């Protein structure tokens, strides 16, 4: 297995970078979209609220594999032709936006209503309430869930090879089929995914600790 790892280190690194690049772009693009959705689902306007719910149900309720194929193979039929990597980022971003919006919604809902009312009594503006009262508490509540979502997205990104993006999983498959050593190849991929997950969780823990310290001050 060590020979396989050394012989193929360059392409494996490329695979890891593709996996990380696509995942982070998707998370970053999905975040603002998720926030918009979370806000929309708290609106009084029924149409706005419904539309947000339909979007979230669709992207949470259908398999990512199907979503990828949809974006890559069906969009060209209406004249939108995205290159493979961009199609992967767009599909995963649309998907994670739905999951992130639920995290944001739950986070905002967890802030006690009494605090918001108290702030209103004190004459704080809507924006001030969001920035000073709701957001700081919500972020602390949401952080573990957001780290979890990032980890889930990295795992889900292993499907993007179906639309011709050569990620870590595809690299392992390529190595498996040219060397006829599938077990070792997939074991290497597994170890690399575990390494990515460990680093991401460590970053998440660090952030959580930081926020706790801030709270203590």
């Amino acid at each position, binding site marked *: 297995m060590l020979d396989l790892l050394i012989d*193929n280190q*360059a*392409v494996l690194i*490329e695979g890891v970078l593709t996996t990380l690049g696509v995942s982070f772009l998707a998370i970053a693009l999905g975040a603002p979209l998720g926030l918009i959705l979370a806000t929309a689902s708290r609106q009084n306007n029924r149409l706005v609220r419904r539309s947000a719910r339909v979007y979230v149900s669709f992207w949470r309720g259908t398999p990512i594999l199907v979503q990828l194929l949809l974006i*890559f*193979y*069906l969009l*060209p*039929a209406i*004249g939108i*032709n995205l290159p*493979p990597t961009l199609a992967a980022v767009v599909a995963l971003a649309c998907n994670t936006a739905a999951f992130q919006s639920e995290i944001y919604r739950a986070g905002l809902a967890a802030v006690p209503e009494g605090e918001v009312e108290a702030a209103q009594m004190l004459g704080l503006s809507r924006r001030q309430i969001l920035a000073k009262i709701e957001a700081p508490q919500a972020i602390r509540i949401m952080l573990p869930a957001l780290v979890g979502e990032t980890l889930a997205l990295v795992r889900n990104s292993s499907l993007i*090879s*179906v*639309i*011709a993006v*050569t990620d870590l999983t*595809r*690299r392992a*498959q*390529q*190595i*498996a*089929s*040219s*060397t*006829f050593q*599938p*077990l070792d190849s997939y074991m290497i991929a597994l170890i690399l995914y575990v390494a990515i997950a460990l680093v991401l969780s460590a970053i998440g823990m660090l952030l959580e600790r930081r926020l706790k310290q801030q709270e203590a001050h």
Partner: protein
Amino acid sequence: MKHLLLTAAATLMLNPVSAVAEDLLSRITADGVLTVGTEARFPPFEFVENGEIVGYSGDIMEILMDSALPEVELKRLDLPWQGILPGLAAERFDYVVTSVTVTPARRDAYYLSVPIADATMAVLKRAGDDSIGAPADMAGKPVGSQAGSAQLAALEGYADTLDDTPKISTYTDFSEAYADLAAGRIDAVVNSLPNLLEAARQRPDIFEVVAPTFGEPTYFSWAGRTDEDSASLNALFDAELKRLIEDGTLAQLQEKWFGGAMNLPSALPAQ
């Protein structure tokens, strides 16, 4: 019609220099990029080494691009087999440079090129498994092949002629089928002979090819779309491949990748 207009509009927007794009080939030469779809998990035809797609088809493409499209850059996308023909139909790439086994249904739906290799079916077993001495010994045993492949269709056709039908498992690609054969979950894998010889050559302690081959002689070819737009590109590939078959270049490459030259006609046999 609407679709045509959209495509034309998109091409014009992306490519303001070339005035009116006549067809696929002229757009390829104008843009300087030929995009092809490949399933790079089919050694020795096409596989990945050090991040590059190499193999028999890689060598052919190198020669072909130099002689026919010297100014054009070749972009080879690697995607699973199940996405290759749908991707071609959805115009995700211009042409398919991956071993497509010739079948009547595929000849109706796609433009298949001049044959590039012999694809006659054979059986792979675990080394030293005495219970399989000929293809007919697959009767009643668990066997595997790739989902959506012509090899699977051939296996299913052959299985019907046996008294005791084999239990057939299907896989996303052949690597998984080989892995299951090695693990003992199935007793045989059906694929085209050149691929099986490569598997046995790479892991002689694990795999062994069963002689003889079975079924009708079949061929591998490449594929384009059947529309008017693709006609000149299809013709260019055909002319180049025919030339390479006739001047012995392909025979040399077969010697290099398969250890022996194949007897290849310079056109697909009539249906």
